[in-house]
């Protein structure tokens, strides 16, 4: 398949891995922000090709992992109401809330629909005028533009029965939270290529300068991952900081302007709580006041939600790169993909699930 095969070419991957080994002289701790990159490293076994001095730690870039428990409980409450249809990305259904998950709500007769795009949820609202359709709007800057479009489309259609349960988060603020934590070990970043395809990378130079870290905008294929690592290690070895674009086939500095315009039209920056991490100022988006009628939290009385996390789960430390999945006492024992205690064991982008699926705890 064109545009992927080239970036999975075995000879090129082996050459780049050899290059990386050659330029690496000192030990470095590098975080890949995005859970998609974590899975790529594990899926293709690229982590096995790295020089022993390079330690990868896995970042918070897993949409379902960072969605707070309270929001999941709210989604469950809405989905359990016969007047509602809750539409969601599939990954969200297995994430444990305080009691049960959306799969069990569906099994008990609740209307939970898996959609591939929020625009499908708008269609659901058109097809079910007697129901309130709520789309569970989670994720980073990658999911924000389509979620904004769903509101723009619902407005154009005059739909009164469509709204979003918003839990949108932003990458740069999370990077700052990690870097300013006293427990931080991260010395360089692979920035999330898909997020940068939308937002560009103009937000990163101030972070690189403030915290003296190199940042490489990095893609997801084996060649991309190695190109990003080579760029970061080169800067680390040279004592340099700054931002390089190692994913120039998809990312420009300014990013996707129409997508950013859609975000700005519908959303505004807001404080957000990250599951396992806590509240980070301005680390997410909420709907602008003029779109309050599409805000499920404002529109419906979801009631007081009491949340309780599994005590043993160390998801917060994993999402901040402070600990790794096999260091968790519950990993692969009480906590498995069939019976997850925390979200990172559920998601296709969760670090615990990546370790379990591809390494089985080794």
């Amino acid at each position, binding site marked *: *398949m064109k545009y*992927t095969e080239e970036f*999975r070419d*075995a000879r090129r*991957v*082996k050459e780049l*891995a050899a290059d990386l080994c050659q330029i690496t002289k000192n030990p470095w701790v590098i975080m890949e922000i995005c859970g*998609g990159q974590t899975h790529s490293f*594990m*899926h*293709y*076994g*690229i*982590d*096995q*090709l790295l020089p022993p001095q390079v330690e990868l730690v896995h970042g918070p870039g897993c*949409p*379902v992992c960072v969605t707070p428990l309270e929001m999941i409980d709210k989604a469950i409450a809405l989905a359990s109401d016969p007047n509602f249809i809750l539409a969601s*990305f*599939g*990954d969200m*259904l*297995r994430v444990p809330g305080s009691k049960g998950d959306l*799969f069990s709500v569906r099994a008990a007769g609740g209307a939970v629909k*898996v959609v*591939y*795009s929020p625009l499908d949820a708008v269609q659901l609202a058109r097809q079910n005028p007697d129901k309130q359709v709520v789309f569970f709007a*989670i*994720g*980073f800057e*990658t*999911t924000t533009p389509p979620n904004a479009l769903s509101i723009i489309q619902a407005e154009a259609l005059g739909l009164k029965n469509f709204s979003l349960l918003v839990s949108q988060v932003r990458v740069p603020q999370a990077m700052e939270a990690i870097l300013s934590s006293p427990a931080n070990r991260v010395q360089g970043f692979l920035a999330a290529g*898909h997020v940068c395809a939308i937002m560009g990378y103009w937000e990163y130079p101030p972070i690189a300068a403030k915290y003296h870290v190199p940042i490489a905008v990095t893609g997801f294929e*084996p060649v991309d991952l190695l190109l990003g690592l080579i760029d970061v290690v080169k800067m680390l070895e040279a004592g340099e900081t700054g931002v390089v674009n190692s994913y120039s086939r998809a990312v420009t500095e300014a990013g996707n302007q129409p997508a950013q315009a859609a975000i700005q039209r519908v959303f505004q920056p807001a404080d957000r709580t990250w599951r396992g991490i806590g509240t980070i100022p301005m680390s997410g988006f909420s709907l602008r006041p003029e779109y309050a009628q599409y805000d499920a939290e404002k529109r419906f009385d979801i009631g007081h939600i009491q949340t309780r996390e599994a005590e043993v789960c160390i998801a917060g430390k994993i999402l901040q790169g402070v600990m790794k999945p096999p260091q968790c006492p519950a990993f692969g024992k009480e906590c*498995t*993909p*069939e019976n997850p205690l925390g979200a990172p064991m559920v998601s*296709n*982008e969760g670090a615990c699930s990546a370790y*379990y*699926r*591809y*390494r*089985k705890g*080794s």
Partner: protein
Amino acid sequence: MTADLSQGPVCPVPLSHRETIILGHGSGGKLTHELIRTIFGKWLSNPYLDQGDDSARLPMPDGQLSISTDAHVVKPLFFPGGDIGRLAVCGTVNDVAMLGAVPLYLTASFILEEGFAISDLDKIVQSMADAAREAGITIVAGDTKVVEKGKADGVYISTTGVGVIPNSRKMQISGSAAQEGDVILISGSLGDHGIAILSARNELAFEVALESDTAPLNGMIEALLEVAPDVHVLRDPTRGGLATTLIEIANQSKVDIAINEINIPVKEPVKAACEMLGFDPLYLANEGKLIIILPENQAQRAIEALRAHPYGRETSMIGRVSSAKDGSPEVTLLTPYGSTRMLTMLAGEILPRIC
């Protein structure tokens, strides 16, 4: 609405129920008999079925019996490369054949939803007849029930197959018979059925030029066993795909399995769909593919025989069996980069990625 009174007042004529299934079709009365005659009898007639007794009287074959049963609930009922009828026959024929048995007899029970189009049922039963003819299996008994509208999804078909494992078979073919040193073959590309079904459900939001691989595999197995009588394991990687099936075999046989990614055939449209959705072709369902595990010295002959068969043209050697190193059987995939990853069973449904 204006009544046409040009011919004077008329009595309402009882509706003929020739177009859709109604509850009466499952009552056991006249409507049931009419349905049996006009649909099932038309396509499936044979001396055993036509006996008309409560069960079929069948000659006892020489050898051991292989029996399997399977319920089919596919959506949509008609998809590129097949339909629920073909699937209901092939699925059970293949399960029976995986022990090296020659499939002989099939029974089929239908759960029909009130309102189901009889013309669709006609197509489905015709398709079953075609698939049964291809597989050389005779449909010897059947049953029909009708449930109220909304209590089923069109039609569900449950089939049970009986086959005979001839006394001439040398090996006891079983998932627990894989041995150290065996090689692993796959008869063709992975994931065609899974992606064709998703595409037919219009769940992909893009078009895929792909047909399901639904097919009876017993003919190919017969050709295989003629040249490679020492086959240890035969399995069709249906739900859960190649990865799940190999894990099951590794556990049953208490062996390690290693497969090489570059030798695993996957069609371009399947790769593309998997890229878009974040699926892994190793976990997608197949309905016409065969995993063969056999001693290495018969592999070449086996590959030639399989490639000569229409359903095995893309047969490829994908891996090897070794003794379980630390007591817990493992399935490992070798990447094109020389690295490895473990294959584990998926938890629950396959879910598309978010971004």
